[in-house]
């Protein structure tokens, strides 16, 4: 440490770092850690947004059900649909039940049968849509029961097949994100371990003097641990900040036609970047300490 002014002044002296200050090598390492943290942060944002998208779909899908009604003999399809809607509206957990009129049902079939290609007397299945109470939605069983009681021949689709698919995909995305995050952490640990090994070799003279002056292995390991934890924290800060800036820009400029509808993020998601530098520092500390202790113990 150099002091300005009076060279005799030792009262303000503070211990200098025992390892030489960083050299060129550390810059490459910091870049790698920053890139890893950038990727990890983006991944965190993406999985948060994907999770939110899935939740939205789940909410939409589970808030409604569709019932296909087949008219009985001596009954028009409109009458059947009306009876079904009436029966379903009375079920607990249903907020609204409405039958689609024939025109609406024909419109749904258009893609398959073509415009105007449906004879007026052809019985077509009529649809009743049911809005469910989101807090206590009626089950498919309850809806079926109501239909049976009313003597309506119909089939309830509560979208559970779609729901399962969406939930499975969301789970897969979450699992993939966690797995990728672990891989990134392992890669960071590996480069830190490599750098610690190189640092110990480069500072062999210093380390030996420390040992001869009575330093324990843990004391020496702590020097590397602190050095690399600080480096990783700083690099992590840059990486996470860059990812946050990118995400913020995408949020602002992505607009309704950008990826925001696909990956709906909210400003609060940016907080996911905060723990990244801390996690990076922790991974670096553990990797550096473990590597240093292992190598020092192996010395004669």
């Amino acid at each position, binding site marked *: 440490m150099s002091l300005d002014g009076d060279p005799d002044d030792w009262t303000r002296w503070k211990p*200098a770092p025992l390892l030489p200050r960083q050299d060129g090598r550390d810059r490459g390492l910091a870049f790698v850690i920053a890139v890893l943290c950038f990727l990890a942060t983006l991944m965190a944002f993406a999985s948060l947004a994907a999770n939110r998208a899935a939740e939205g779909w789940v909410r939409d899908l589970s808030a409604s059900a569709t019932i296909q009604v087949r008219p009985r003999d001596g009954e028009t399809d409109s009458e059947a649909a009306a009876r079904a809607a009436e029966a379903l509206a009375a079920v607990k957990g249903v907020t609204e039940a409405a039958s689609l009129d024939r025109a609406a049902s024909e419109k749904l079939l258009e893609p398959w049968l073509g415009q105007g290609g449906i004879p007026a007397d052809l019985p077509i299945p009529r649809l009743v849509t049911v809005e469910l109470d989101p807090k206590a939605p009626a089950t498919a069983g309850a809806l079926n029961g109501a239909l049976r009681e009313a003597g309506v021949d119909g089939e309830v689709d509560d979208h559970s097949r779609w729901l399962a698919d969406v939930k499975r995909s969301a789970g897969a995305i979450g699992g993939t994100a966690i797995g990728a995050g672990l891989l990134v952490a392992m890669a960071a640990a590996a480069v830190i371990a490599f750098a610690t090994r190189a640092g110990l070799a480069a500072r062999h003279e210093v380390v030996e003097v420390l040992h001869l002056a009575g330093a324990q292995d843990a004391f020496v390991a702590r020097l590397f641990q602190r050095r690399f934890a600080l480096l990783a924290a700083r690099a992590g800060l840059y990486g996470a900040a860059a990812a946050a800036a990118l995400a913020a820009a995408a949020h602002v400029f992505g607009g309704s036609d950008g990826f925001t509808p696909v990956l709906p993020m909210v400003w609060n998601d940016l907080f996911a970047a905060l723990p990244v530098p801390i996690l990076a520092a922790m991974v670096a500390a553990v990797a550096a300490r473990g590597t240093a202790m292992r190598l020092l113990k192996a010395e004669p």
Partner: protein
Amino acid sequence: MSRQGADPIERPSATASSPIVAFQAVGMRYGRAPEVLRDIDLTLAPGSFHFLTGASGAGKSSLLKLIYLAHRPSRGLISLFGQDVSLMGRRELPALRRRIGVVFQEFRLLEHLSAFDNVALPLRIAGQRPESYRADVAELLAWVGLGKRMHAMPATLSGGEKQRLAIARAVVAKPDILLADEPTGNVDHEMALRIMRLFVELNRLGTTVMIASHDQDLVSRFGAPVLHLSEGRLAPV
């Protein structure tokens, strides 16, 4: 200077009469090369003062390395402070090393640290707080004539200044054993005498001292017992 190590708890097994350093039939080699030290029997009483002489390459530095635990013997028994060193694990050695001050022949100053930080090193390693030793370090630096160069980096010091810095670092923690390898090789006669007087003073306060030296004049002047190495063996003078 007051003795810090005088606390009886810090000196467990060595009673006044048992040797502080004892070698029995010790041999030493570097790697697979032939032994550079053979059949060394040696005992140093606590508080003794010895010179270690011998031609260049005789093994003086090597013998000191065995004492300051930088090297393991290839055979024989070494005990320090009454403890058998060969039975000790890696974690037990630092505690012994802290009780041994060494002036290395090639100084081994840490080039990225100032003179002040170099001297403070053993105290930092021992876990002391800067406030508790700052003044002592400054005083010791002034004493070895580096008062004006306290914050200089070693690379900017002369050979003699480096030597004095190395000496200050070796004695700052008031070790029980002081080993000095050619500690007066780079200083003028007057500074050599001052340094020797420092060692004598430390010895008077209880430190066991061993000085490897070529300087016959100096050795005879102080009249301390001499251990002479010749081709790896201790020979009578």
